């Protein structure tokens, strides 16, 4: 009968633990569905090039891009502010993986369009992907008058196809932590017609971009497009841009310096004329960098399916 006192002790213990119980602990760990990493970049473009982010499903993103003249134009040119090239564009998120967009640039009066698809999405919980993998297919069409296109030659028939170019990009990126996101975005630009016989139609580049989050609403961004040797025509430079994203409620303002004036793939990857080395040079020595900005304003066209409460 020695165990009777033991039972009594057990009875007391049971009552005691009952009072202190962690009720939610009784349910055990919850199964949660896949939770994808979000906000690796503030918007769908790092500066000129695509970031690994998509426009959210059902959201229309109206984007206004400005690139001013070279800053080293001096005070008379208001440091470039007098001359601007503009791109107006609309992007739309078809679903969580697919987005499409069109735009019209003043640069060579070009219309461009693209499709971007996320094949793999980086995951915080519930799945294992350590990176995001996206592909972008873009094309552009120059609508300049026949005698104004850069390749104008009276002895050549001006076929419509001459005005087209294509660009394919693969984006592999990761949000390492709240502060740092990096991506590699190699790709190829195909030009249907090039200015000189020895210029390649296909221009390959191995490029990268990143951002550092400085405060909740401010990030520092940089991107570099590194065209492989012999890809660039005489007089054109590799594209390097640095800038800041400033986020307010429904807008993202991107302010930056870039040696590219164009805002679609062919233009900034293969036709950048500015030279970072001439940032402070006399304007007669050539163009330096351009100041520019992008404004992104989103409109929710279709609300996501959500519980009604």
């Amino acid at each position, binding site marked *: 009968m020695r165990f009777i006192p033991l039972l009594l002790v057990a009875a007391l213990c049971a009552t005691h633990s009952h009072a202190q119980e962690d009720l939610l602990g009784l349910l055990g760990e919850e199964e949660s569905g896949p939770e994808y990493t979000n906000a690796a970049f503030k918007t769908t473009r790092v500066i000129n090039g695509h970031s690994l982010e998509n426009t959210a499903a059902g*959201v229309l993103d109206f984007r206004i891009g400005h690139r001013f003249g070279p800053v080293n134009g001096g005070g008379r040119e208001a440091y470039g502010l007098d001359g601007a090239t503009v791109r107006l564009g609309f992007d739309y998120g078809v679903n969580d993986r697919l987005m499409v967009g069109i735009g019209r640039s003043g640069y060579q009066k070009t219309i461009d369009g693209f499709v971007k698809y996320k094949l793999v999405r980086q995951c915080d919980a519930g799945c294992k992907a350590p990176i995001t993998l996206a592909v972008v297919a873009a094309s552009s069409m120059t609508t300049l008058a026949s005698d104004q296109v850069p390749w104008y030659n009276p002895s050549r028939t001006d076929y419509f196809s001459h005005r087209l170019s294509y660009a394919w990009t693969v984006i592999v990126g990761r949000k390492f932590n709240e502060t740092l996101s990096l991506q590699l975005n190699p790709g190829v630009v195909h030009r249907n017609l090039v200015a000189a016989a020895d210029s390649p139609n296909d221009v390959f580049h191995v490029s990268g971009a990143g951002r550092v989050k400085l405060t909740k*609403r401010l990030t520092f961004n940089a991107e570099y497009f590194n065209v492989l040797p012999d890809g660039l025509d005489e007089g054109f430079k590799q594209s390097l841009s640095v800038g800041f994203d400033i986020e307010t409620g429904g807008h993202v303002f991107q302010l930056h310096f870039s040696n590219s004036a164009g805002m679609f793939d062919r233009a900034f990857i293969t036709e950048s004329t500015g030279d970072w080395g001439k940032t402070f040079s006399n304007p007669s020595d050539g163009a330096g960098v351009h100041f520019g900005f992008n404004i992104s304003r989103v409109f929710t066209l279709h609300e996501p399916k*959500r519980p009604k409460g």
Partner: protein
Amino acid sequence: MNLLKTFALSLALAPLTLAAQERYMTRTGHVDFHSSTPIEDIHADNDKVTSVWDATSGAIEFSLLIKAFTFEKALMQEHFNENYMESNKFPKATFKGTLKGVAADQLAKGGSYQVTVEGTINIHGVDQPIKTTGTITVDGKGGIRAESKFQVKPEDHGIKIPGAVRKNIAETMDLNVRMDYTKMP
């Protein structure tokens, strides 16, 4: 001696059986909040709230994932998580407290009971004491619904709202809680 043995045994088991019979839980509870200003109305819903209520002791607990709140605008949801709730750092909001006003044996029959709930709410990693009233409705078929409305100030939980959007976001959020409990086996 046999009698004593039985007595001790039943005493040991009693709290277990009692408690097991009067606990209620849900994993699909509903919490929504609303911020209303002349400029903008913001509303978000969460239908994956977990709660356990021990009707015998009155102890009640809630837990929800901040990321499970859905908004009408994707960007609002991103900003809510990124800029205000910092949901990577503070993934959950919890409540722990006691519910008074209804006895376990009343739950067997249908009816509506006014109750008070008091305890500690943790949002954005910051504890605040809270006291509110609610209703428990029993439909007589075993369905038990708990409802409550109360207010929370983001400022009290260390959530900073910058001047630029001060006019878009209310100083106090109106919260609605609705739990449909089922008896725990």
